[in-house]
């Protein structure tokens, strides 16, 4: 895969935007700013997905992450009070010793990953050249052109859907169970004591002890 022309320009534009927004996500003081920078990073990565001809994943990325997960993050930021952080009274990073240690490990990781990408990629290119010589496929030219004639229609979404249901139907069902567990689990975790009492979900001994500290808990009617 070699991008050229405007594709190369947009690759560098969105790639650097993703990295820059990612850095700001980690460095910003205000948690809401962090969330907004993370959204722009995710959108830039979605643009990179489009450049890699994965339009379906790009759409899912925008819908699920920006439309769902990030809204959830913003609501939780609203629910927990982070005022002290915004006003600059609290330190946003951990203690200096831990930060230095983690940055040293990050540097080792960077060096290792870049070394692996550089050396491993050359071998990969040799293998790809052999494979290209045997198959010699350029699938893009077989696809029907679009209305403007400047690009070609792709069948990516159809192919991904076909493979998802043909070879990945069991993991797909397991993922749906995982999502169900996540829904129920987050509802259970975020319940207040009052809500637990009204659902008659508290041990009587615990309830008595809690009622001593919080009298309003004892007055909650148990609804069946």
């Amino acid at each position, binding site marked *: *895969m*070699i*991008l050229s022309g405007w594709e*190369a320009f947009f690759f560098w534009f969105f790639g650097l935007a*993703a*990295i820059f927004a*990612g*850095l700001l*996500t*980690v460095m910003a003081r205000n*948690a809401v700013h*962090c*969330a907004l920078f*993370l959204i722009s*990073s995710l959108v830039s*990565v979605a643009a*990179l997905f489009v450049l*890699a*001809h*994965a339009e379906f*994943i790009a759409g899912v*990325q925008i819908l*699920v*992450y920006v439309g769902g*997960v990030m809204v*959830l*993050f913003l609501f*939780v930021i609203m*629910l*927990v009070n*982070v005022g002290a952080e915004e006003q600059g009274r*609290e330190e*946003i*990073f*951990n203690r200096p010793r831990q*930060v230095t240690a*983690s940055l040293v490990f*990050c*540097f080792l*990781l*960077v060096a290792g*990953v*870049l070394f692996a990408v*550089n050396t491993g*990629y050359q071998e990969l290119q040799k293998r790809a050249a052999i494979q*290209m010589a045997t198959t010699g*496929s350029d699938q893009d030219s077989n696809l029907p052109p679009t209305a403007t004639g400047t690009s070609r229609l792709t069948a*990516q979404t159809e*192919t*991904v859907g076909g*493979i*998802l249901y043909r070879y*990945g139907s069991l993991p797909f069902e397991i993922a749906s169970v*995982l*999502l169900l567990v996540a829904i129920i*689990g*987050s*509802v259970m*975790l*975020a319940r207040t004591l009052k809500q637990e009492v009204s659902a008659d979900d508290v041990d009587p001994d615990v309830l008595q002890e809690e009622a001593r500290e919080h009298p309003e808990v004892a007055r909650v009617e148990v609804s069946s």
Partner: protein
Amino acid sequence: MSILLSLAVLLFQEASDGRVAQMIKGVRSPDLSKFLVIGALLFIIGVAGVLTRRNIIVIFMSIELILNAANLNFIAFSRYLQETGSVNAYAGQVFAVFVIVVAAAEAAIGLGIVIALYRNKETIWVDEIDLLKW
């Protein structure tokens, strides 16, 4: 800081071979390795965020960044395998869908835990949440 150093290492490695022209060509026509480098840098930014930040919500955001970097690698390899005519070329995209599903579930559960913690401990700083420390 570590990002700048890594870029310097990359540039040094490319330039020390005396192939500056090839580097310019690599910038003008990026290939798989450039996708991998961007994925690696995003991953490392996420790791740095998880290790250094105190706010537990920002730590969750950094985890999302890490999962996204992994997704970028999956998609890039999927595209690469499509062009070399591999059999399982689309497995990367299918796997990316599952990564997104797991990330969404993880965010929902994690934020539920954050709310429960905030209700009990009145804090979102991870260095003050030391219930399991002895």
